[in-house]
Every structure is written in C-alpha cells, then in structure tokens.
C-alpha cells in the first residue's frame, strides 16, 4: 500500500467504509441497482485476490467523482471503479453500444474525410434515433445526439489571423469543442488574444481518453494518454501552459492519467495544465487580466461541473464573471447534472441520468436567468435537454463581454 500521493491505486486500503461516499453519490440516490461507491471499486480492489467475481452494479457508476469529493480519507473511489471496470472488460466482450459511445472521435474523423461528412453523420444519427435503430443497440432514443459542426474547430482555427504575442498558450480543444462546439474554441482564442496571448493548437492531439476510460477500454485510453503525454511534454519543456475549455479533458490530463496509468512525465505535464478560467483568474491575481468589458450584460445561472469541483480549484468562472459589469450570475449549486459524459446516452441509464439532474433542472426553470453557464460540454447538452434553457461556456460570455 503506497501513500496517497504516491500511489492512488493503493488508496483502497485507506477506505474505512465510513459511508460518506454513499450519501453523496447521485446515482445511489437515483437507483437501487447501484450498491454505492464504497461497495464496488474500493471493496472489489481489496477482495479480488480472493474472489475474481465481477460486481454487476459496477456498471452503474458514472465516474462523476462526487464520492472522491466526499471522502475524508483521500481514496480515489471513482478511479478504483474505473480500474475494476477495465479489468472486467479484459475478459468480457463489449456491447456494440459502448464501442460507438467510446469511439466518437474516430467515427467523425472518418466521416469528415467524405464530402458533407458532418451533415451525413448528423443525418445518420437523427435517422438512427427516429427509426429506433439507436435504441435497438442500447442508445437512448429520447436524447438528441450531439450535432457535429459543419466545420471543426481545427478547420476554423487555421484561418484565424492572430496577433503575434511573446506570451503563448497551447490549447487542447478536446473532441466536443473540436467537433461539436467549435464556437467555444473560437471564443477562447478571442479571449486569449484580448489578454495578449497567442494560441497554439497542436493538431496531433487526440481524444483525452475519458470516453474510453468510462466504457472500460483502458488499453486504448492508455494509448491515447501515451500519445498526448508525449506531445504535451514537448510543449511543457518549453514552458508553455496547456489550456482546456473542457473540465473532463483537464481532469484527465491533470489527474486521471496519473491515477490510471504508469507513464513518464505525467506529473511534470500536469503542473502546466489549466482550465481556461483557472488560468485567467491567475492572470487577474497578477493584475494582468484585461477588464475592458463593453458588452451589454445579462442574467445567468451557473452550474459547476462535478469534474471541475473535484479539481480543488473552486469555481474560477464564477469569480471571473463577477468582474464583468452588468452581468449577474446566480450559482445553481444543485449537484450533478446527471449526464456524466456518455453515461446518460445509454438506453438503460437515461432515466437515472434525468433523475439525477432533476434538482438542477428545477433550479434553472425556477430562476429568472435567461441562459445557463457551465464549463462542460456534456453538462450543457444535458441542461438544455432537461430544462429547455440555452447553455453556454463561461469563455463565450467573456468573449461577448469584450465585444463592443
């Protein structure tokens, strides 16, 4: 058993089975089918040597990480769950559904090689949904599939003429922003330029691996981690900060890679990885954050993604937005939205996912805010689906506030 800092995989033995994780787990609250965090990953990690049986209810963990936030003993509960899930799939076949949900990046990259690829990919997903084909393979038909943008962020980024500055940051766009929500990436470039930073995008970055980890494709996730880590190292060796606008990507690069895989340079790289708002708030604390805002403002409600809350950096977006005149942001503070990446897309998890998000949806509907702000792409999808209110990234709000 290693110390907590040295060996997160060894943290199972720090679990005192105190039950704190069970009281804060949103999935445990939504369904009796899940036995609760402490009874899967931590318990299994310790018992597997005696009995290699699978714990069926492990399938229900959404890796939202509220267990980690509530644990008084520093146990990496959710990561232990993911390691156990990966272990299970080493000897059991994956359903086709999981293959599709885990490999979105590969599929859209193939589609984009064809003329009108994204159009047909969207059409295909829509037809699949409406004809019940997606439901047949286990993907929730009630939920709209993420729409692919007609031009990816990378395609659009190539034609942006940036002002050159000596200060540079490297942007890790992540699949969702690159393929589905490039406006966030464009807004990010705009905000960084406004703050006299030049944005570098490494086109060789691939999916951080989060969708692979949660569906039990640990070896493939490790291959992604290996590739991204080597690429990131080249930039961090030169001292460039690595920024993301996706809290699941940043959590992966900062923390989960090191918890899951034994690769060189992970800890060194992590020191340079920032959530975009975290980085800008640091700039503000150095009195270098541009506050020449001229937008017309608005009323918003903010949802903190669980994958941000677990990072131990508070809610930097809320603090940044408090600097913008005429903008009023209420903190929803209503727990997990329920979607947890690809979890809420699964046919058999859809209802759980919507049940988990109920409190947040009600809070949003009861609020007088006209839009929701959240740092996570799938949280925004879930919020729009569950509450019917438009959701944007905090960087988009900042970018608009800079525009005259």
């Amino acid at each position, binding site marked *: 058993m290693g110390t907590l800092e040295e060996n997160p995989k060894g943290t199972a033995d720090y679990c005192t089975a105190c039950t704190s994780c*069970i009281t804060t787990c949103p999935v445990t609250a939504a369904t009796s089918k*899940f036995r*609760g965090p402490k009874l899967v990953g931590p318990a299994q990690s310790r018992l597997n040597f005696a009995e290699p049986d699978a714990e069926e*209810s492990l399938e229900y963990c959404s890796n939202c990480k509220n267990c980690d936030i*509530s644990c008084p003993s520093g146990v990496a509960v959710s990561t232990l769950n993911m390691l156990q899930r990966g272990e299970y799939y080493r000897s059991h076949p994956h359903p086709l559904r999981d293959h599709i949900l885990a490999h979105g990046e590969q599929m859209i990259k193939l589609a984009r090689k064809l003329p009108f690829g994204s159009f047909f990919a969207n059409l295909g997903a829509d037809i699949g949904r409406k004809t019940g084909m997606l439901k047949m393979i286990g993907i929730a038909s009630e939920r709209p599939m993420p729409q692919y943008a007609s031009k990816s962020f990378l395609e659009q980024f190539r034609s942006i003429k940036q002002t050159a500055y000596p200060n540079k940051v490297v942007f890790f766009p992540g699949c969702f922003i690159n393929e589905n929500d490039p406006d966030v990436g464009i807004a990010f470039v705009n905000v960084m330029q406004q703050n006299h930073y030049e944005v570098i995008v490494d086109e060789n970055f691939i999916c951080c691996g989060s969708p692979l980890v949660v569906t039990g494709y640990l070896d493939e996730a490790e291959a992604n981690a290996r590739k991204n880590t080597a690429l990131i190292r080249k930039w961090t060796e030169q001292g460039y900060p690595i920024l993301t606008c996706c809290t699941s990507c940043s959590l992966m690069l900062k*923390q989960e890679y090191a918890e899951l895989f034994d690769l060189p340079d992970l800890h060194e790289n992590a020191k340079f990885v920032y959530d975009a708002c975290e980085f800008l708030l640091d700039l503000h604390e150095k009195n270098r954050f541009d506050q020449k805002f001229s937008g017309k403002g608005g009323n918003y409600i903010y949802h903190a993604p669980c994958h941000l809350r677990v990072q*131990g950096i508070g809610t930097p977006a809320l603090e940044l937005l408090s600097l913008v005149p005429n903008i009023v942001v209420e903190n929803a503070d209503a727990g997990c939205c329920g979607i947890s990446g690809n979890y809420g897309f699964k046919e058999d998890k859809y209802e759980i996912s919507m049940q988990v998000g109920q409190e947040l949806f009600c809070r949003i509907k009861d609020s007088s805010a006209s839009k929701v702000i959240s740092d996570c792409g799938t949280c925004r999808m879930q919020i729009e689906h569950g509450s019917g209110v438009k959701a944007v990234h905090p960087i988009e709000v900042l970018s608009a506030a800079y525009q005259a």
Partner: protein
Amino acid sequence: MINSDVIVIGGGFAGLMAAAVSAKRGKKVTLLTYGSGSFPLNSGLIDIMARPTDDAVCATPVEGINELPAEHPYKKIGTKILEDAVSFFMELCEEEKYPYSGSIDKHQWAVTALGTMKPSCLVPKTMLGDLCLKKQEIVLVGFNGLKDHYVNIMEENLEHCLGNKKNYTTVMIDTDIEDGRDITALDIARWLSTPHGYETCLRQLRSAVKANSVVILPQVLGLKHDYSIWEAMKKDLECDVMETTGLPPSANGLRLRNLLLNYLKKHNVTMVENAKVIHSTVQNNICRSITTKTAARERTYQSDHFILATGGFYGGGLQMENFPEIKEPIFNIPVQFEGKAEEWANEKLFSNQKQPFAEVGIHTDQQMRPLDVEGNCFLNNVFVVGRNLSGYDFCFEQSGNGVALVSAYQAAMSL
C-alpha cells in the same frame, strides 16, 4: 492567491459553524473542504454535556460543565460564551426554517435505534424523546429490508428504560423501493418524500396505530431540512411522531449539513471543495498564507486569519505513525501525549473512565489560539476548533458537536 479576511480549513460541523459565525460578522470567508466531515455518520444532534467526570449523568448540561477540569475547552471558553454560541446556532436553524429544540438547562433525551435513551442537548423537533414519557401507547416502526433498526430489540430496551406499564406495539412497513441492494434509512427517506411512498407508508401505519400514540421511526422523515413530512404524519395519524438516532448513513446529519451550506451560500462564503491543505507560511508568529495540493500543482491562499477545523485522528487533522510522535500537518502545532504507550487506551471500552487517546489534541488559549510546549501563543492569527482540540472525550462525555459549536463560535468571535 485568493485574499480573504478568514480562511476556514475543514468542512465538518466545526468548520461550517466557524464559517457561519465569521460570515454573519461580515467577514469575507473562504472555506476549504476535504471530505464531508462526520455529518453522514452522526445524527446531527448537538450534545453539550452529560457525563463530565464518570458514567453518572449530570443534572443538567450546564451543571455538568461546572464539574469539568480546567483544561476542558468549555472551561477555557466559559459559560457566557457557550450560551451565546447556543443562541447563535438556535437562531441560525430558526432562520433556515428547521428550528432545533433545547437549552443548556435541561437534557433532551433522544431514543436510540437500540431503544435506549441518550442524553443530548440541542435536537431537531423530530427527536424529542421526552414525548415517550407522556404517552401510554408507544408504536415502534420498522421497515422490511432496513438493516440496523430492529424493533424487537428496541421494544425490549425501551421497556427496560421506560417501564412495562406502557403499551408497546411494533409495526413492520413494506416499502416498494426497487430491488438491488440493502435498503438504508436514506432510501426510505427519499421514498417517503414522494407522494406515493408517503401514502403507502401511511396506509400501513393507519391500520396499526391508534390516535394519541407516540410513533417512533428510524431517521426517515425526509432528507431536506424541513419538517413537512413530520408535520403531515403527525396530522394524518393524530399522533406524536418521533425519529431515533441510528447507525450511518444519517438523514438528520445530512439535513444539518445542507442547512449550514445553505446558510453559508446566502452569506457569500466562497467554498473550495476537495482542497487538501498541506502547509502554511508563517513569519513573526503570523501566518501569511496556506497552500493546498491539487492533482496539478500547489495553490496558495492568503488571509488575515485562519481557523483550523481539520478534525482529530479520524479526519486527518492529527496524525500518528509511530507512538508517541503526533503530528498536526499544516501548522506543525506541537501535540503531546504525556503517558506511556500502554496508557494510550483504556482497554475497558465501557468503563467509567474517559479514553486517554481521545483527550489528546492541541492546547489553546482562551481565544482558541494554539500554544507551544511551554504554553505560549506562537501563531497570533490561527485559531483551532473542534475535534483537534485537547482535553475532551466527546464520546464519553456526550459533548459531540457541542465542543465543535462552542469552540467554532469562540474562534470566529476572536478574529
């Protein structure tokens, strides 16, 4: 660097109370939490004092306090401040529409899941066990599938406590909660929060309960800090309705936590979750900043004042790998155990003596500032509250949450 008037380190009851009192005084508060404290584990009762010296219960909490030795936190702080702290807490609960009952002039007896009567002081209205003394008909309610709440054992013990002149009835309720795992009190609390669950339970209770009884349930009357389910059930059954204390997970502990977090949000307390504080920077007996370790890197937080509420050995606020080297990891405050290794624990768990290890902790002055081995204050703007204090055994004395409340109040008032 985040600048605050006060940084509170710790998200347990002492930490949340210290943040609440500081915020109420208009301070800019940053609360750093690591874990959810012992809220899910205790019943959210505020015990003040029941057994100050041996296993005899004192006449009233306040009289018990008078009997305590000088090194007890209550003795250092004084009864006047203790009264103010209790008033603050009672007003806070009132403001959050989940008022507690009780005062330091009287024990409030709560019924436990074992059917014993436990002395406490400030309790939610659902746990006023004295009602049992006033009623002839006592109905003990269990739920099929719920572990750790056995009505037959309760009946036997309650008969022993309250006498066999009363009429005891037991009722087992069937829930239709979906299968999959053992049912907890939280599952039943969620079920009773739905109209269907409530009606299903009420129907079964009605056929077994006479009007004017006292109906005793585990902690299942909802997870929110309001009394709506309790009030509805009292009205619908025309009975008194009561909850017991119980084994974790505790619904009322979570109600208390939610109530306090709600209060902190209203008072603009900045909260950073999963923030593990690893060290501090001190110059000339003044702490300038503390540093947290996140997965990516260290972060520094500056403040004028710091309140340490990181708990004892369970919470990680105190650590001991080799006897007798006890460590307080953030400020390196000296903590000593005077006795030999064999004196560390009293092996008779249910004896009439306090546990020596339980009384180990940080010595402070009257304002809750830590003292060095010579008894001198060496950190002028750091205050220590709750379970990492020395001189009390909350379990034996039944002062759990009480010392936390009073020390948190005193620290926040000393800023």
